[in-house]
């Protein structure tokens, strides 16, 4: 059973209400004294735990301490005035009913009169941890077990002596003096749960001198159960214990005693204690005492000593135990504080100044505020603080203190508490509160406000950000401007951005900021400057103009974007110049697009510039800027009809055709006259929108014109309207004296075999104009008819390379033996010979076969040409391979071809044929070897000459040998 439950069990036996777990619950607190006093009620086990004063547990800088006592402990003590003060201002918020507290002069047990009073205490940030809304019931009766002395009678002789009754309390008390430390510990553990008579406390107090630390700690634990019965002298002695933990607990216990006589001891320990936590316990003890006693019982000199002790605290200690100091201040009469501020004792004055600051009440602050000229710098600072505090202390609204950071060092509190509260107060419905809040904010350094404001702006929604921006503007927090700028630049166009932009415009120095950013080396900063200028100076152009001259294309693009959707005036002019001359295509394109939403004149101007650009996208945008609604736009569109890019020309034509009325028709028709053939089709397509009847009439009229260009136009239109034009129309046009008309007709014939008159078209391959000839070739090439071949062949040696190439290409596309034969036949025509040979060379195997075949019966010249052609076509290897053909005829033919080709590298293969089984082949081989003139063939030929049984072979061999061995010539007896 845990000690806590033991207590509850025992009390239930005694008829006491068992305290609830919450009442006995240890609640962490910052007041070490109060916390320590409840160790007896906690689960703290002396055997296991160490009283650690160096524990590093902390909550928000609050020193750690063992579990705290609950306020119920204090409430259990009758006559305790339970008050709660606001931790910040020190104002008294609630007061419980007061009962005069009895004077405990000695250690005699007294049964206090404990009226049944329900105290409802509200939880507060108090060092005396008061649970929330815990009804505290003071026990009505406190039965006290009085030890009964049982007389000891001498046993009768022979009679058995009676055994005395077991008294655990006495037994435990008796064991306190045991030489065995373990017995002493057990005794104290027992006493910590037993119901104690007041005399027992005296006995336990003696254990405070025990040499064992844990025995002394246990003794304290017992005494903490009822501080009012704890012998104060012994506890005061424990306040000097070697162990700081015991000292601190002793001081806390003194603070809970409710006896003002111990106050001096506690005050002395404040100044005389080295251990900070012990100092804190002493401060806590003082604060508790002051809060528990009747102020009339407090001697003024004692209060002054308290102030001196506070003044002697190091700032860090004071900061650490600020709440205790605050409670001390609240426990002192305000008039004493105010009066002592006029003391000549500097230490006292300083201490009272600190207490006045912490108390924060009007009278004390006003008295302190008057010391702004004091010799003591700390007093002066506190006085200045008091001045700012005093200005709104009279308002019914609680506002936090505003203190310069340098004096109180509460940086975090300023930004986490003060500024946010003041900002909220700016929205208060009461004007006075808003004024006070603004005045307080103005007293704070702008940089500190900006430190809070900047992250708030970044995290806010646009409306809140605008509100914060307006506050920043009103307070002239220039440090917040960059954050505001970043925020506004991230916003999409809209009301929020406009609102913030308006705020930024109101900032003094915004223009200087923009100017500084414009010359920043950071490109992103320059871009931000341009965007900001666009927001802050929507009608201004200086920033944009500067941006358009920036060396970075990215910055120039940002400038164009900042120029808005309707650039005009100086900005528009600057954009036109950019469009005309910027080195970056992307920038020029952006500049052109910037005018898409501009007025007509500006768009016209931009389009005119864009249509001259080298980049097609820029020119395309130029066309988009035009609608054809004005004469100027029409002229530009007509110009665009001549654009080399078909898409751009087509777009221009489409725009023109969409403009209603005969003017557009006339414009397009005139454009048609002036356009290139490439653009003509685009324009014609656009003209189709006007209807076939009108166009047909116009076309016919044009075709009958004496003007050649007009006739060509008319023909083109008639062709388009009549889905290619009539056959007769086209053929007749082939004879037109106008080159354009003939060309137009041929262009229409291309790819239309049904409209083809081969001879009429073929005749055009000799047209005086190269364009016509080229078109004729195209038309013939599109025709899958061999009758076109002679014309194509004719064109294949055209003086103009384009025509030649086209014709030759058309021929080569028809790779066939018949075409090869045609070419071979053409070899006999001197002016076609070379071309035919070249074509045959490119025709591959098909031509090789025909060429070899053509050698049969060919005359010398033809043979030579065929041979050259074969040689050029690389047919030698194939023919050499053919020397091994199964057919003697093919072998002979191959030999013949190799001979014609003058294939010197075939000599070895030909020598091999001297032993061919076929005499004709041998003869041919002998003959060709003689023709080739390679002397390597002499010896083989000689052998054949003398050995071959075929006399034709011998004769051929003789002839070849005679060639190879030189003259004399054949001076035979037969000649």
């Amino acid at each position, binding site marked *: 059973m845990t000690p806590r439950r033991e207590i509850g069990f025992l009390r239930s036996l005694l008829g006491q209400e068992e305290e609830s777990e919450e009442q006995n619950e240890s609640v962490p607190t910052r007041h070490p004294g109060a916390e320590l006093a409840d160790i007896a009620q906690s689960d703290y086990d002396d055997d296991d735990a160490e009283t650690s004063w160096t524990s590093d547990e902390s909550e928000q800088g609050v020193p750690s301490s063992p579990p705290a006592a609950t306020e119920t402990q204090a409430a259990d003590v009758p006559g305790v005035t339970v008050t709660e003060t606001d931790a910040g201002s020190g104002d008294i918020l609630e007061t419980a009913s007061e009962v005069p507290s009895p004077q405990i002069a000695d250690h005699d047990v007294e049964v206090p009169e404990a009226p049944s009073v329900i105290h409802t205490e509200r939880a507060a940030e108090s060092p005396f941890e008061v649970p929330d809304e815990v009804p505290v019931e003071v026990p009505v009766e406190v039965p006290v077990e009085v030890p009964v002395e049982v007389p000891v009678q001498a046993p009768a002789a022979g009679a058995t002596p009676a055994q005395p009754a077991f008294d655990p309390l006495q037994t435990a008390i008796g064991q306190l003096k045991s030489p065995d430390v373990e017995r002493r510990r057990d005794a104290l553990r027992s006493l910590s749960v037993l119901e104690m008579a007041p005399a027992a406390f005296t006995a336990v107090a003696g254990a405070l001198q025990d040499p064992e630390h844990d025995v002394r700690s246990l003794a304290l634990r017992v005494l903490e159960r009822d501080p009012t019965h704890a012998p104060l002298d012994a506890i005061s002695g424990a306040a000097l214990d070697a162990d700081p933990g015991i000292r601190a607990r002793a001081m806390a216990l003194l603070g809970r005693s409710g006896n003002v006589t111990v106050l001096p001891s506690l005050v002395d320990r404040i100044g005389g204690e080295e251990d900070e936590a012990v100092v804190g316990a002493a401060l806590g003890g003082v604060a508790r005492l002051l809060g528990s006693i009747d102020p009339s019982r407090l001697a003024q000199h004692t209060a002054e000593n308290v102030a001196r002790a506070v003044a002697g605290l190091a700032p860090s200690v004071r900061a650490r135990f600020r709440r205790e100091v605050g409670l001390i201040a609240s426990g002192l009469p305000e008039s004493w504080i105010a009066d002592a501020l006029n003391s000549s004792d500097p230490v006292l004055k300083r201490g009272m100044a600190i207490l006045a600051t912490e108390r924060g009440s009007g009278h004390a602050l006003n008295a302190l505020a008057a010391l702004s000229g004091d010799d003591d710098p700390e007093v002066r600072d506190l006085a200045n603080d008091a001045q700012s505090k005093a200005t709104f202390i009279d308002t019914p609204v609680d506002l936090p203190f505003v203190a310069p950071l340098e004096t109180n060092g509460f940086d975090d509190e300023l930004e986490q508490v003060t500024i946010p509260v003041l900002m909220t107060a700016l929205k208060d419905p009461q004007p006075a509160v808003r004024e006070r809040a603004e005045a307080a904010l103005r007293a704070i350094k702008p940089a500190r406000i900006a430190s809070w404001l900047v992250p708030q702006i970044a995290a806010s929604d646009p409306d809140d950000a605008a509100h914060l921006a307006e506050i920043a503007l009103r307070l002239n927090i220039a440090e917040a401007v960059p954050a505001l700028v970043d925020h506004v630049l991230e916003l999409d166009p809209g009301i929020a951005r406009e609102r913030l932009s308006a705020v930024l415009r109101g900032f003094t120095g915004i223009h200087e900021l923009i100017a500084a950013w414009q010359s920043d080396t950071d490109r992103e900063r320059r871009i931000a400057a341009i965007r900001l200028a666009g927001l802050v100076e929507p009608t201004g152009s200086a920033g944009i103009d500067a941006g358009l001259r920036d060396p970075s294309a990215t910055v120039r693009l940002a400038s164009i974007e900042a120029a808005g959707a309707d650039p005009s005036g100086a900005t528009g002019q600057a954009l036109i110049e950019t469009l005309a001359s910027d080195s970056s295509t992307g920038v020029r394109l952006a500049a052109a697009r910037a005018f898409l939403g501009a007025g007509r004149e500006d768009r016209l101007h931009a389009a005119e510039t864009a249509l001259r650009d080298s980049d097609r996208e820029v020119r395309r945008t130029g066309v988009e800027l035009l609608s054809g609604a004005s004469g100027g736009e029409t002229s530009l569109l007509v110009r665009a009809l001549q654009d080399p890019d078909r898409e751009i020309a087509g777009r221009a034509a489409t725009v023109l055709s969409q403009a209603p009325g005969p003017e557009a028709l006339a414009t397009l028709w005139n454009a048609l006259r002036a356009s290139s053939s490439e653009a003509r089709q685009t324009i014609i397509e656009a003209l189709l929108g006007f209807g076939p009847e009108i166009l047909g009439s116009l076309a016919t009229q044009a075709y009958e014109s004496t003007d050649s260009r007009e006739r060509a136009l008319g023909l083109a239109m008639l062709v388009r309207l009549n889905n290619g034009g009539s056959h007769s129309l086209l053929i007749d046009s082939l004879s037109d004296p106008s080159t354009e008309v003939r060309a137009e007709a041929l262009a229409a014939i291309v790819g239309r075999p049904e409209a083809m008159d081969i001879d009429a078209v073929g005749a055009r391959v000799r047209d005086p104009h190269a364009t016509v000839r080229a078109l004729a070739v195209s038309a013939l090439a599109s025709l899958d008819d061999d009758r076109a071949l002679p014309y194509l062949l004719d064109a294949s040696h055209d003086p103009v390379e384009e025509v030649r190439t086209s014709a030759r290409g058309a021929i080569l596309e028809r790779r066939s033996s018949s075409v090869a034969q045609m070419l071979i036949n053409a070899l006999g025509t001197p002016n076609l010979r070379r071309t035919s040979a070249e074509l045959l060379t490119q025709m591959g195997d098909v031509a090789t076969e025909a060429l070899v075949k053509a050698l049969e019966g060919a005359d010398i010249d033809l043979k030579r040409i065929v041979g050259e052609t074969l040689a050029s076509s690389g047919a030698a290897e194939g023919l050499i391979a053919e020397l091994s053909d199964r057919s003697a005829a093919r072998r002979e033919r191959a030999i013949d071809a190799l001979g014609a080709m003058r294939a010197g590298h075939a000599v070895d293969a030909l020598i091999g044929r001297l032993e061919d089984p076929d005499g004709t082949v041998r003869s041919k081989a002998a003959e060709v070897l003689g023709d080739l003139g390679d002397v390597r063939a002499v010896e083989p030929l*000689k*052998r054949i*000459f*003398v050995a071959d049984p075929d*006399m034709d072979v*011998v*004769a051929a061999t*003789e002839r070849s*040998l*005679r060639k190879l*061995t030189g003259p*004399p010539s054949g*001076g*035979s*007896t037969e000649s």
Partner: protein
Amino acid sequence: MHLRFVLVDARPTARAALREVVEEQWGWTVAGEAVDGFEAIRVARNEGADVLLVDAAVEGLDLKALFDLVDPEVGPLVVGLLDFPHQHVAARGVAVMKGAPPDHVRNVILGSLKKHAESRQQLTDEGDR
């Protein structure tokens, strides 16, 4: 043994003189005449000649070439008619000085033919074995 001769000399007069010797003195037949070695072979093959009387100065296929080309075991006997002793190339083939008595030349021819015939027979006998 009746022999058929081809007379090979670029000069008609020389061929006439040779014809007279062959036909009148030796009683053999002149199968044909040639002006150079090529013709000589061709005529000899056409006419089936046994002996080629070849002037040492003949061109085209010269005497040496004829000696090289014509297998004495198979083809006709080539007899060179020399003007100078150095014209006899490495003792290959049969050659006589032009100033030699006709009987001597006749004996040389017959002796060579006999020798070749014996050689052919020997080869044949060896082949049979």
